[in-house]
């Protein structure tokens, strides 16, 4: 019994090593005509909306590049994996992509927490990773000691910039003097936004009349909304994700609260409109990475091509994913090789990259220097957009 088991195990080992050899040979041959890029996204689970959208954008960009002859004559081969919106899964998939699949660079995950979990893997293997939407302030491109994470890049502004922009938008564009903050207390993203909004808004002479909190998955906000209804204020700042924000907006409007409601890129999902209803989405403003209202031909061409391919209007995550695909191809082209270190240097040296989410350069801290868009909703439709440049 035992002997046969040993034999069986030995057999498995032998077969395993053969297949491993086969894999190696494949990648060896393939290197001449193609370059593998890891696409590590949240395709199922809690934040699947973001991951799915980013992936669609990336794959569309790769298809366009491949159709036009690829980069430096190489076809881009995406290796798409689903990290199930789970940080541990994202980490082990990043390891698999880098050590077994032989990717030249990894894209994603979409959310900060999952992205940050893959940073040690990238640093350990010396393979660059880029996220188009990990907006957390701390611990992404710069580690806790203030050192740059050499192999880590992102294509989006960070949360503090969004908080500051929305506070300035409230006090300058909406001439608000008083504000109420209703934040998602279960997310670092929302807390970071609230902190920055508060400090900027009070510095500009405004007052925060009330601060309320809720938890993700809450459905009843009538109690906190009724209590703020009795107060005098000009705007509501509502940092959080669309699942709850949609319900807060609906219930606020139902209770007769008509003050403008401000939020950030967490609002950007068609589900917001389904949850809140078109009637409630008036006087709602949120900061975002891109606006479909932008008349730049580059943006309009992208929207047209996207609609053609997927049949829907692209959101910011589609646009960021698309830019991310083009961005990595651009870096490989400039690097002139598929060596991860050469790609890393090319990424760090990016200047004036032209994308649908704006023209930007990569700063010394591996963050892009790019503008932000504040979108205004009227009857649930994106009606206005204001571009704010970094100061």
């Amino acid at each position, binding site marked *: 019994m035992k002997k046969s088991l040993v034999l069986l195990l030995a057999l498995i080992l032998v077969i395993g090593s053969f297949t491993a050899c086969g894999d190696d040979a494949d990648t060896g041959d393939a290197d001449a005509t193609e370059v593998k890029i890891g696409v590590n996204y949240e395709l199922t689970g809690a934040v699947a909306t973001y991951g799915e959208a980013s992936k669609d954008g990336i794959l569309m960009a790769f298809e366009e590049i491949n159709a036009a002859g690829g980069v430096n004559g190489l076809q881009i081969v995406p290796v798409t994996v689903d990290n199930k919106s789970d940080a541990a899964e994202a980490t082990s998939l990043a390891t698999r992509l880098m050590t077994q699949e032989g990717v030249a660079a990894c894209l994603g995950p979409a959310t900060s927490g999952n992205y940050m979990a893959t940073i040690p893997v990238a640093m350990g293997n010396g393979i660059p990773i880029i996220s188009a939407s990990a907006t957390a302030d701390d611990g992404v491109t710069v580690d806790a000691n203030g050192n740059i994470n050499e192999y880590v890049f992102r294509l989006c502004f960070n949360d503090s910039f969004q908080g500051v922009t929305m506070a300035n938008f409230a006090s300058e564009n909406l001439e608000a003097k008083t504000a109420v903050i209703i934040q998602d207390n279960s997310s670092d993203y929302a807390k970071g936004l609230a902190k920055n909004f508060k400090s900027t808004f009070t510095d500009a002479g405004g007052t925060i009349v009330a601060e309320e909190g809720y938890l993700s998955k809450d459905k009843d906000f009538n109690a906190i909304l009724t209590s703020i209804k009795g107060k005098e204020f000009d705007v509501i700042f509502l940092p959080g994700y669309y699942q709850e924000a949609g319900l807060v907006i609906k219930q606020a409007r139902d209770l007769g609260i008509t003050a403008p409601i401000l939020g950030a890129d967490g609002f950007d999902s068609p589900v917001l409109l*389904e949850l809140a209803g078109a009637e409630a989405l008036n006087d709602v403003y949120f900061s975002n990475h891109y606006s479909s209202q932008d008349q730049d031909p580059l943006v309009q061409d992208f929207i047209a091509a996207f609609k053609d391919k997927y049949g829907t209007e692209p959101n910011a995550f589609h646009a960021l994913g698309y830019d991310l695909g083009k961005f990595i191809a651009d870096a490989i082209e400039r690097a002139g090789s598929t060596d991860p270190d050469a790609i890393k240097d090319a990424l760090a040296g990016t200047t004036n990259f032209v994308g649908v989410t704006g023209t930007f350069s990569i700063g010394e801290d591996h963050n892009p220097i790019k503008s932000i868009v504040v979108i205004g909703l009227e009857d649930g439709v994106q009606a206005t957009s204001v571009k704010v440049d970094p100061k």
Partner: protein
Amino acid sequence: MDQFLQQIVNGISLGSIYALIALGYTMIYGIIKLINFAHGDIYMIGAYIGFAVTTYTNLGFFPALIIAMAGCTVLGVTIEKIAYRPLRNASRIAVLITAIGMSFFLEYTMMFFVGAEVRSYPMILSKKTFNFGDILINIQQIYIVLTAVALMILLQFIVHKTKTGKAMRAVSVDKEAAQLMGINVNTTISFTFAIGSAFAGAAGVLVGIYYNSIDPLMGMMPGLKAFVAAVFGGIGNIPGAMIGGLGIGIMETLISGYGNSMYRDAAVFALLIIILIVKPTGLLGKNTREKV
């Protein structure tokens, strides 16, 4: 004062939903001494049935409510037959663990089929609001409270005025004696699951209409809170579950409105601990004759 009354209105709407779920908990506990942790998930499935009916067939509120209640009845009876009946003579902890397993089974099966993304109900009720001074009551809140009250009256009628109700009361007092009197215990237990599940299904549809957002894990928290409500009112006691549900709803709203909304859930579960220490039988627990 206006604000206080408005908060009470909010609390009663929320509490009616807890009460509907708590009724099922308390009835099932009363009859087979089982805390049916899958009850919150039957409520979730009720919400999805209502969603499917209103979205794909364009039926109105009442058909959706009745179809969801019927669907949940079938589900509840099936669960009892498959999962709980074979364990009728097993230890209570075995049935309890089965109930927890059933809860996860329902949650993740739903997630597999419908995905984790939140869904919203189509607008099936008009967007009317009534002003009483500064107090706003919207049409959904009226529907919730009226439906809950109507169902509770119906339940009281079934339990106290019908033969089946008498059988339910008899089984809850003494299963063996009831059997000796010619009562079919299995049918009676099935009937209890049927009514409890139908009420949970109704609560699911009402929540879908009121909050406009449903997801496969929506049953977890309300399920636990309804359990607290059932214990608060005296588990096994039907009027207790109603009072407990409304009490928890109003308490939550007042804590969020006047205290800090972060302590809301903590306060509900602190209440559970206090009741279990001070008066384990709950508010109306002494009245054992009313048990069903």
